[in-house]
């Protein structure tokens, strides 16, 4: 049987699915246990936290859609009986954003422009030559005379986009109101007024307004994308809006998988050191002091360079270019994880040291409960809040770190879309005159939105689970491993 596509599961995809499953199972488990649910309810009551969560959800959706990869079948060969699949790995997101991907111009063009950014010599109808800004192949191609038609056309499209956004938002409003009234058994009218007066337990009003703003910004952008390049095009004519959206997945992968990779190390070693003490503690402490004493960026740079060499020497391991780029992304996560587990490990060691002296664990030991059981049954559940806080707090730092590392040239593969590679390739554009600002601006704007909402959400989680942990985890020393730009930290 010949499928019209061949599913491709890249390494990071597989890990993302694992992560997704873990999150789903834990959510189900937590929802059935009141004592585990309580701090999450506190998170759900936090206004800034839930606003951030709504925005994060949008990012995560794009990232997940971009993680379902496949290779489309090549046309023409299907009849032969053996299908040939394209070398390009596509994602579901690529299919949705196919028009954006396809509409490649020659080179730079400003946002919403109908003309190329560089002058070219064109032959005029009367045979003479002139240097003009040529029209774009796709952006504004439907306009006969951009000088007069462009502004009304853009306004028209924005109005249409706003109308669609308003419609979608109203439908969402109705759904939420009906669902809430059904769930709590109040009348629809009461639920409605409770939402708008902010009397609901969860900040539904703020969440819905955030959602409305997201719709209001992105739907018109999408509508405009049908005829223009909303955020312009880059040096090789790719749509910047598309590139920015593609970068989201890379950021999310680095932010989450790194912690996933380091978690087993940190958990196992931290708890063992704290619980067993003695020579085990000495060895583990020696291990993390040694790793910690190497400047983080240098260790990461050295490891990435060396592993990049390994990848280059074994091109035959990978079928496609995206598999190779993905392998590098995965290795980057591994390296970041291995070099950054020390902070969490030290925290967990301290917490386990404290826990093992508590009465209930002493009692368990007196009853002859095995060490293994004490660790899994009594210590592990009681350090999980630290792990959770570490995960959410590391997330934003890692996204920022990716940009810095990619700038240095030891980040993700240069062919992979990421905020770092966008900034890196755009830095020379600042020197051009007139300046090409749009790809840099979009990369920074989207990165800021993602990191800011991640930070706000992390704050809400930390405040709900353990406000006192604040200083210890977010200490400047922890961040300085990634951010070499500020030695004062």
């Amino acid at each position: 049987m010949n499928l019209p596509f061949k599913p491709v599961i890249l390494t990071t995809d597989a890990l993302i699915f694992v992560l997704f499953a873990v999150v789903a199972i834990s959510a189900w488990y937590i929802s059935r246990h009141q004592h585990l649910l309580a701090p999450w309810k506190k998170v759900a009551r936090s206004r800034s936290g839930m606003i951030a969560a709504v925005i994060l959800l949008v990012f995560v959706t794009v990232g997940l859609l971009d993680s379902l990869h496949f290779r489309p079948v090549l046309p023409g060969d299907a009849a032969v009986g053996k299908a040939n699949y394209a070398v390009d790995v596509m994602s579901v997101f690529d299919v949705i954003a196919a028009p954006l991907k396809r509409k490649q111009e020659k080179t730079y063009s400003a946002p919403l422009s109908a003309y190329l950014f560089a002058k070219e010599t064109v032959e005029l109808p009367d045979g003479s030559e002139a240097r003009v800004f040529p029209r774009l192949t796709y952006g504004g191609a439907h306009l006969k005379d951009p000088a007069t038609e462009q502004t009304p056309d853009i306004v028209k499209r924005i109005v249409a986009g706003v109308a669609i956004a308003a419609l979608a938002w109203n439908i969402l409003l109705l759904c939420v109101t009906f669902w809430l009234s059904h769930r709590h058994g109040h009348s629809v009218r009461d639920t409605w007024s409770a939402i708008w007066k902010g009397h609901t337990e969860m900040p539904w009003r703020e969440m819905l307004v955030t959602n409305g703003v997201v719709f209001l910004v992105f739907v018109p952008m999408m509508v405009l994308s049908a005829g223009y390049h909303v955020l312009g095009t880059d040096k090789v004519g790719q749509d910047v809006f598309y590139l920015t959206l593609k970068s989201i997945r890379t950021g999310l992968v680095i932010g989450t998988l790194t912690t996933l990779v380091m978690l087993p190390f940190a958990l196992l070693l931290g708890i063992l050191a704290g619980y067993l003490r003695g020579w085990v503690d000495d060895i583990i402490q020696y291990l993390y002091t040694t790793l910690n004493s190497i400047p983080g960026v240098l260790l990461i740079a050295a490891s990435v360079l060396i592993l990049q060499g390994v990848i280059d020497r074994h091109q035959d391991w990978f079928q496609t270019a995206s598999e190779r780029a993905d392998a590098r992304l995965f290795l980057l996560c591994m390296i970041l994880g291995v070099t950054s587990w020390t902070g969490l490990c030290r925290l967990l060691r301290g917490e386990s040291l404290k826990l093992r002296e508590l009465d209930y664990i002493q009692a368990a030991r007196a009853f002859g409960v095995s060490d293994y059981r004490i660790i899994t049954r009594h210590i592990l559940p009681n350090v999980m809040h630290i792990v959770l806080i570490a995960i959410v707090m590391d997330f934003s730092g890692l996204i920022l770190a990716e940009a810095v590392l990619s700038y240095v040239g030891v980040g993700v593969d240069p062919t992979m879309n990421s905020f770092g590679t966008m900034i890196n390739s755009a830095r020379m554009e600042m020197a051009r005159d007139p300046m090409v600002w749009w790809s840099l601006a979009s990369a920074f704007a989207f990165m800021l939105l993602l990191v800011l909402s991640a930070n706000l959400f992390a704050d809400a989680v930390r405040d709900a689970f353990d406000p006192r942990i604040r200083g210890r985890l977010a200490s400047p020393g922890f961040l300085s491993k990634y951010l070499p730009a500020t030695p004062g930290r």
Partner: protein
Amino acid sequence: MIAFLVRRILYAIPILIGVNVLTFLLFFIVNSPDDMARMQLGQKRVSDEAVVKWKQERGYDKPSFFDAQASGIRKITNTIFFEKSVPLFWFDFGRAEADGRDIAHEIRSRMWPSLAIALPVFIVGMLSYITFALLMAFFRATYIDIAGILLCIFAMSVSGLFYIIGGQYVISKLWNLVPISGYVGGLNAWKFLVLPVVIGIVGGVGASARWYRTIFIEEINRDYVRTARAKGLSEWRVLFRHVLHNAMIPILTGAVVAIPLLFLGSLITESFFSIPGLGSYTIDAISQQDFSVVRAMVFLGSVLYIIGLILTDISYTVADPRIRLQ
């Protein structure tokens, strides 16, 4: 005190040996000298003779740890580990692979520009972060405080690269106040240093000021502060005389350890502003894949970090007379 210092230094030795062995494994075992030669000479179309010659010139053609063919002590000393990694202990860094220059000499001349940026950022930064945090603590739980925290979170969320690129664009290109990048020796260097220093300070404000504020708020809720207020001291006096003094201990932990590392400079700032410091030296080495320089910087970095840890312990006794080192 002396006994403590001696013990701390002795404790540092196994860590440095660990770092040394780790870098050796990373640079010579995972990435064999053959691979290194190919990288330096160009990936493809390198003849085996060229590789052998490259290795011979740099002494990478020896066995890694143990030379069975040599006799006596030479069995150990005639190896890459002994000749390339062990000399790092007495700061003999060897020569750069790309241009053959003496690394130790480069480090000595390049650490001053690095320090010229890092030191002002550190001192002025610390002072302004502490002042900002004290202000937030003074106006705690008011709108000023909340606005301050939001500002910090926002500043934390902006990429460090943005501060640099934006600062260069606005201040150097639009307003023409200082040169975009470059460096000269001597007193005229200030023109080139102002912008990177300011950007360094601004880039760190979010995380640091917020963290210091947390420390201050924690101290403010203690009993001695209530006593001080009960005595009728003004809020400013309470903050400056009592809270600041006691909050210095956690602040010092984070800060003192960074002081020796100031010599290494900052990778990104220096490369953006073309400052000929150790940071840009490291970046160049990374992009040229010059592993002998990266190795030297890794080792130097760990030595400085360990010195920082020892300094931190000493600074405790200065900040808090109750702590005795033994």
